């Protein structure tokens, strides 16, 4: 079984292959197959499959950044105009890196290379930890303590556990002492996939998007604490939709 199949991303996996992004129709409406990196806030109505969510986690996140002045933010979701605008207007330098898409692209590329036998399996560490190491060697490349805040969204649910652990470690290095990180965790395996963007200081917009990687794991509170053991503060907000928003302060 191929690596992608093991991760639920092979042929037959639901809606994994990214289709050519659908363009706006003449009527201005669009399907739920919103290109994940497509962004914007003007000209067209909100994409279908967009829901607003009052976010106490975001409020707390912003409250902790209050008074920081000009800061640096790392957004690990897709680049959305509204999110960029929100933070840039407040003086932030925003770095946006679509980590999950990069992970998916990495897995697809690696799978292709293995199939073509350009790299012998003997020379390649095919364990999840080895994969994660190879991925992180070319991603999340920033100076230590270069960010005041990180928006991790719910990415950890979609990464292999080994990859999730190493990602958190890498982010901990990138976050300066006192920096804040906002993550989300599903209480049960999500069926679909959503992107998040900041609508205002207390509202997130959740946008349905094609599944990039199926959810890999549901984290319990104890596992989350272990994962973020190097952070001195953790505060969770559980909403009615059972999506936990958790704020970590390094």
């Amino acid at each position, binding site marked *: 079984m191929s690596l992608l199949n093991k991760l639920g991303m092979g042929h037959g996996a639901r809606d994994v292959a990214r289709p050519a*992004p659908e*363009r*706006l129709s003449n009527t201005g409406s*669009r399907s739920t197959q919103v*290109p994940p*990196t*497509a*962004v*914007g*806030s*003007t000209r*067209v109505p909100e*994409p279908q499959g967009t829901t607003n969510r*009052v976010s106490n986690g975001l409020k*707390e996140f*912003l*409250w*902790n*950044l*209050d*008074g*920081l002045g000009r*800061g*640096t933010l790392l957004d690990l979701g897709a680049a*959305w*105009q*509204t999110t*960029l*605008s*929100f*933070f*840039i*207007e*407040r*003086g*932030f330098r*925003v*770095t*946006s*890196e679509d980590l999950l*898409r990069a992970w998916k692209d990495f897995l697809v590329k690696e799978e292709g290379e293995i199939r073509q036998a350009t790299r012998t399996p003997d020379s390649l560490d095919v364990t999840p930890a080895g994969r994660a190491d190879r991925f992180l060697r070319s991603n999340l490349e920033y100076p230590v*303590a270069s960010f*005041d805040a990180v928006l991790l969204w719910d990415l950890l649910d979609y990464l292999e556990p080994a990859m999730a652990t190493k990602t958190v470690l890498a982010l901990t290095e990138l976050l*300066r*002492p*006192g920096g*804040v990180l906002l993550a989300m965790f599903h209480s049960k395996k999500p069926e679909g996939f959503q992107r998040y963007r900041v*609508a*205002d*200081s207390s509202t997130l917009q959740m946008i349905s998007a094609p599944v990039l990687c199926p959810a890999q794991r549901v984290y319990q*509170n104890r596992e989350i*604490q272990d994962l973020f053991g190097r952070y*001195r*503060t953790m*505060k*969770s*907000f*559980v*909403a*009615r939709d059972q999506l936990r928003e958790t704020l970590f302060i390094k």
Partner: protein
Amino acid sequence: MWKKEESKNQSVPEVAQASGTPANSPAPAASFRDLPAAPAPSRGAATISQGIRIKGEITGSEDLFIDGLVEGRLNLANGSVTVGPNGTVKADVSAREVIIRGKVDGKVAGRDRVQLWGTAQVHGEVQTDRLAIEDGAILRGKVEAGKPVERSAAERSATVGPNGKTGNVSVGPGTVTI
């Protein structure tokens, strides 16, 4: 800072200023609100028309409109680069302003502003002070937007949270149900 801003309508971004942003004030985010319906070659701009293919390095200080194919390197330090809907650029692009309606494969650096129109397809890193991205644009790569932040070493090594407010945050794991 945040609480003051809450009174604003966040869904309506401020209009991007053309110039004159004070160094210490946040750079307003760019927006498509005030843009013309579609960028066209500005008067006096050099044009690489559809069907023209150029390989190599392009430098200068004038504006450039590309509707053809360019491979190599583009550096118009004080100029504006517009990639038209038929344009394809396989190069690192560096200019004062970069407007993209076509395809770009490479690093895009716009000193003042980068605009990605709905038809834009960018594979590569984008660096700019102000970034406007229209619905439908495809962006695959890292984005760095906003004024560069310079902070003193003392601030960086601070171990308390920003603004010293962490004392109000619960210590240790806690759960609040709403």
